[in-house]
């Protein structure tokens, strides 16, 4: 491999794989990175943590040539390297796996792997060559995927493997992964870490961005902490603890466990029987779901993304139509046609914090106060005849923003200008402050930093203690384990089983999530 040889010659084997010196980057008024210096040693796994918006992704994007730094220099293998674009990063042996995969959905694995790294102008020889190399790589690193399969038919875990294969196919020595485990099952995450360790054995260097301190402790050799665009600390993993890291990140002590008393379950609020849903593509997403949620309890639904939890929330929230029986306080809810929409569900007393706040929960271009009425726009308190009562909305928004500590506390700001955590707080305030009899919550803390997680968890528990029923969907097993009073595991559109948090463990849940009966194993 000519590229490799050329690269080896330039490299100083003793030098760090990557060294950043004084990197600064501003987006308009936002100083995303300021004067960051960092060294990553060869053959190590280096973790980066930090609050939302701390600048982690920006830094890595600079390294990958996606953004151009305003100041600073990058050294790869000890020699100064200009990285004006991704092509240059690839030449320098850097590969990146983005949080949102960069795959062409209706292409095959093979086509995705060769894209941009073809051998010549004709496709056929490139593909043939890649097919062979792929089999070798698969053997070497446990990266099995069918090269001829279309990406859209692959699970997220497999898609991620394709991303890693892409990087390896381009002979990357340095692999950057941005929040890689957000959507993986525990088993898939374990597999990923096995792969990462294998890669490390081969002498590759890995940079791992994550919000999960557990993972940091688990796989990294060193860890850097970012805060407000600055690199505040770099420590050896074995010399630190999750508590210390959390404090370094947020700048104060953070409770890493949820504080909650025992549940006092009351009457059944929500009852779901034999719920079926077939989507517009004809895929069965729910295949007969049964469950109940009582007043004053949190039912957590665990499962790998795409096993029907989202569909369940959407049906209950009035977004999709379905067949089956759903009743609230014993009264049946229509599942299709009239009355099967978000407005009617809210009338019936259901609050809904959707999984995807950007796509569903907020109108990003509406101001905060306009978003406060979103979904409740027909409520009489917000209306004066055919007109909206904007003053009432503003006033309501001010109160909610204050009580939920949304920052900055400015109702005139458009939703897109709040950070992810604060956007989530806006949605939570809107949906929770009405004290709905049933609250549907999807992924309340996805991509949210640990400071905000703490706040959000406390609020959910408070609502439970006020005697409301809560249906929580999350792919984070930690979150499910610590928040729920009961846990249901979904697999392939069905409930695989129910467990009490006190009587189960991650391994068992993980088996259930993978469609195996945990007890048998």
């Amino acid at each position: 491999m000519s590229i490799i040889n050329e690269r080896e010659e330039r490299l100083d084997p003793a030098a760090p794989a990557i060294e950043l010196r004084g990197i600064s980057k501003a987006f308009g008024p936002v100083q995303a990175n300021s004067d960051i210096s960092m060294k990553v040693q060869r053959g190590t796994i280096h973790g980066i943590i930090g609050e939302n918006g701390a600048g982690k992704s920006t830094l890595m994007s600079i390294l990958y040539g996606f953004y151009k730094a305003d100041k600073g220099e990058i050294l790869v293998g000890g020699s100064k390297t200009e990285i004006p674009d991704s092509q240059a990063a690839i030449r320098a042996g850097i590969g990146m796996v983005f949080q949102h995969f960069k795959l062409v959905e209706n292409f095959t694995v093979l086509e995705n792997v060769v894209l941009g790294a073809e051998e010549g102008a004709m496709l056929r020889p490139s593909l043939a060559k890649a097919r062979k190399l792929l089999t070798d790589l698969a053997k070497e690193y446990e990266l099995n995927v069918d090269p001829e399969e279309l990406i859209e038919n692959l699970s997220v875990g497999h898609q991620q493997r394709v991303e890693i294969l892409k990087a390896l196919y381009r002979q990357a020595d340095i692999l950057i992964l941005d929040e890689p485990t957000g959507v993986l099952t525990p088993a898939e995450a374990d597999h990923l870490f096995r792969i990462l360790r294998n890669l490390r054995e081969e002498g590759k260097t890995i940079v791992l961005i994550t919000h999960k301190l557990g993972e940091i402790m688990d796989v990294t050799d060193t860890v850097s902490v970012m805060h407000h665009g600055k690199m505040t600390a770099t420590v050896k993993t074995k010399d630190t603890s999750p508590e210390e890291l959390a404090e370094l990140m947020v700048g104060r002590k953070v409770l890493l466990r949820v504080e909650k008393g025992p549940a006092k379950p009351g009457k059944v609020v929500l009852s779901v029987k034999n719920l079926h849903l077939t989507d517009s593509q004809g895929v069965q997403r729910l295949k007969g779901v049964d469950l109940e949620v009582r007043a004053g309890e949190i039912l957590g639904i665990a499962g790998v993304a795409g096993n029907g939890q989202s569909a369940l929330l959407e049906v209950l929230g009035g977004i999709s139509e379905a067949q089956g029986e759903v009743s609230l306080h014993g009264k049946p809810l229509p599942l299709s046609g009239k009355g099967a929409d978000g407005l009617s569900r809210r009338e019936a007393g259901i609050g809904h914090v959707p999984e995807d706040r950007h796509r569903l929960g907020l109108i990003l271009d509406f101001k905060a106060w306009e978003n406060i009425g979103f979904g409740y726009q027909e409520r009489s308190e917000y209306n004066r005849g055919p007109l909206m009562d904007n003053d009432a909305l503003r006033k309501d928004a001010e109160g909610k923003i204050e009580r939920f500590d949304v920052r900055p506390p400015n109702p005139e700001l458009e939703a897109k200008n709040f950070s992810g955590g604060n956007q989530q707080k806006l949605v939570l305030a809107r949906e929770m402050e009405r004290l709905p009899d049933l609250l549907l919550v999807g992924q309340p803390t996805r991509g949210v930093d640990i400071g905000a997680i703490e706040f959000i968890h406390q609020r959910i528990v408070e609502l439970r203690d006020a005697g409301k029923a809560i249906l929580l969907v999350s792919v984070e097993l930690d979150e499910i384990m610590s928040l729920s009073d009961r846990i249901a595991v979904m697999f392939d559109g069905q409930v695989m089983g129910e467990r009490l948090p006190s009587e189960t463990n991650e391994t068992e849940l993980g088996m259930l999530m993978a469609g195996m009966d945990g007890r048998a194993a």
Partner: protein
Amino acid sequence: MDFSTIILLLDSTLRLATPLLLACLAGLFSERAGVLDIGLEGKMLAAAFFSAACAAVTGSVWLGLLAGCGASLFLSVVHGLASITFRGNQLISGVAINFLAAGLTVLIGQNWFSLGGRTPPLAGNARFQSITLPFADTLEPLPLIGPLYHDVLSGHTILVYVGLLAVPLTWWVLFRTRFGLRLRAVGENPGAVDTAGVSVIKLRYGAVLICGILCGLAGAYLATGLSAGFVKDMSAGRGFIALAALIFAKWRPWYALSACLLFGLLDALGNRFQNAELLGIAIPVQFMQALPYILTVVILAGFVGKATPPRAGGAAYVKER
């Protein structure tokens, strides 16, 4: 309908389908790369004018063709600037280009030739002449094949054959070459292309330029092949029909051929059976005229559900992580 009528209808179909086909393939390249283009109409019109004008002045249809493609390419670059570089709305840019072409062609035409926006009629080498395919005369006596080859396939201008050959060529480029793979990828997920170290901008410009050349051929065919000179608004909605054909064809080259032939056939039928009667009731001419448009709507309503356009179509590429 007797056999000879059918042969003549097919002959006419092929002629009328050619500008649609070239424009449709033009749109295919552009939209496969994620750049919507409702400015096909305007590019065709501009190409028609400049090819006719240049051919009229120089007396060479080939120089005319060059000028036509040049004009179309110029508008393509404008569209590229608007929708790729400056990330503007692609539909709006297309609308503007259609107007620009409609106005400029007549304005310049009037200024140059003082013929009310028309170009002087073209004759001799300033027009594409029809070509007799090899063995056309030898094969003519054969039943079925003979007339089909001699009367339908043979005897068109070179651009008709260019259009027909462009179909397999397009297929080959899209599905058998590196460029095609990247082009299709950039229309589906430009982020993937960008992170793979390939320039999204360059690829899209490439596609838009190919689109310009093909539109140029389509326009040149209108003015120097199908007729002998330019008159204002001579594209007469063909760019829009080509777009409809593209959707109908689900953005695939071979389907595009069939869709364009279908629209060409409709047009030919409308010309041939202008005063049609159905069950004893005379169908208004206006209905026959509007038939392609009505059919387009029907087709869109009936089939588009199954046709998924390139996913990144219509959106400018903005880097995001």
